[in-house]
């Protein structure tokens, strides 16, 4: 089946009963037709693709939750390590530790003390 081709030269104020305002001047007829079975398969396929895309999006969104959770855990562990270091520092600088330190042990009592104020 071939489409009819019409020769047409548009001119202003043309008064031809074949062509009136608002009418398509060309028409198209597909070379092949999609049958009902193929249409159903196509629609189902499209729905499947969309579903996969939706699931992918949801999974991706959920995976961010795990990333966040992992970061939170890492942050908590780093804070705990920082806390441990701070506590150890405090213990080492405690009065008891200072009094028992080698520096304190090597100190001597001055022979005389004079206060300036």
């Amino acid at each position, binding site marked *: 089946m071939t489409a009819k081709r019409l020769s047409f030269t548009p001119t202003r104020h043309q008064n031809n009963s074949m062509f009136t305002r608002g009418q398509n001047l060309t028409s198209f007829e597909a070379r092949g037709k999609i049958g009902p079975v193929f249409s159903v398969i196509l629609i189902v396929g499209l729905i499947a693709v969309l579903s996969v895309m939706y699931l992918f999006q949801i999974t991706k969104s959920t995976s961010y939750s795990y990333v966040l959770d992992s970061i939170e855990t890492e942050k*908590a562990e780093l804070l705990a390590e920082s*806390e441990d270091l701070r506590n150890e520092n405090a213990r080492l*600088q405690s009065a008891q530790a200072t009094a028992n330190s080698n520096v304190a042990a090597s100190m001597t009592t001055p022979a005389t003390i004079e206060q300036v104020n």
Partner: protein
Amino acid sequence: MEKTNNFSRVQILLGLLFLAFVILGFRLFKIQVLEHQQWDSMASGIQSQKSIISPNRGEIYTRLGSDTAPLVLNETIYTIFADPQQIVGAQEVFDKVRGVVGDKFEASLEQLGDKSSQYVVLARNLLNVEKNRIKELDLDGVGVQRGSRRFYPEAAMLAQTLGFVNRDGVGQYGVEGEFDEILKGKPGLLTGMTDVSGTFLPTSQYYTRIPSEDGASIVLSFDRNIQYAAEKILADGLKNVNATTGSIIVMDPQDGSVKAMSSLPSYSPADYGKVENANLFLNPIVSNPFEPGSVTKVFTTAAAIDTNVVSKDTTFFNSGCVKIYEDEICNVERKVDGQNLTMTDVLRHSLNTGVVFQLEQMGGGAINDRAKNVLYNYFHDKFRFDELTGIEQTPEPTGQLTAPNSDEAWDIRYANMTFGQGFTTTMIEMATAFCALVNGGTYYQPHLLYGRLDDNGRVAKQEPQVVAKDVVKSTTSDTIRQMMHEARGKKDSEDSGHFVGSKSGTAQIYDAATGKYSEENYIGTHIGFGADAAGQAKYVIMVRVDDSRAGGYAGTIAAGPIFTSMSNWIISYEGITK
């Protein structure tokens, strides 16, 4: 005639299928539309969870010169647990975890093999290093829970003053109990959908996070170095007289702040659970009323001078004993019997007859209602011996003082009260009153809180509060300081040449069972001050020793050396001028 079949098998099948769809459709309609609310809430109940976000408890610091030093910090700890339904090889888990945690391992092999259980604690209170080693083992069915506990870098320092935090995270006794509301903070709340393992999904619908508010950190008025010295000096002093029980308090008389506070025996707050005697949790300086003994003579003398019934140089004849109806009050020191002595001598020789004389002068020459009212006015209204001081420690019982209108306000009782018997008070009540006595007459609220620590590490200082002014006249305060310095009778070298005054007391212990004072057990007390070159009191120290075995007067022999050591240490540490 043969009956014809009107429906083909396909039509029947289609009919059944249609019916099934109708039923299914109705069912779906019922669930999704009619019962939507019910199913929706049921699903939400399973998928959405709530979790409390624990706040960090505020930390406690002490002063260190112009800086601060940590006293109580937080420490992250871990609990290792196993799910017997998920572990692969109970023996392997048992051996490997125990190999890391050692004595902290608390599960049995039977517990790990019990498949009906899903939670078995393997070890508690693990530190980060131990937890990491467990995680490196990568054992299936073994999990970790994070928690927090208090960490004490100064070990047992100030234990009875600080108190502790129990397993429920509630502050008990001392500062932890008193400031629990501001230290504990406010918990936050996490709500939202979780996965099957219970992990929250922040990107899911309905996820909300109300953050917790950490507790405020506070700075106490103690100076860490003075506190350390006080604890050591007290321990050494008790050891020297074979005593086990005693207390020391150091205060700043110019603002009522406590610089050091220590009692023995004590405990380690990190191991509070091992304490067998709950009395150890109490701070004896605040919670233990006692008959103060002869240190009270300073207050009686101050009252007598302040009411102008005697002066520093007023003399009286010391007969050694004074009779009050059937009872007789005698001095302990009899070397100065039969002499005319000054009021300073009364303090120097701790003469009971001298303070009874002062009481008589308050009554115009006799122990009468007027005398009792004057003494009670000073002891109760001005020195507040039976009033709560409001210091941030619990429990704080008050002392007991007999009012003049009481049936038990006998003359002998009031005579006894002049030298510290027949009434009770606490060390904090007496030390605070003494601060007012030597600072010019201002009674400051005794306090332990120096201020709160803000997020930038700056201290928002709390201003000292004046409870009463003109407790005694400033001239009385000057006179008392001078009298105490003279009465102390130490060589200048013993006080590093500084202006130091003190008074000792050796009080008999009243035995409720016999209704008499013990002749064997005494409480030795010593109270005094140190002043700078201008004569301004810079510190007040009070010492108490309960069970001296050294013989002699416990207030002088046992408590006195502790006072002197502490006094000299502060003079050196603070560079007090002379």
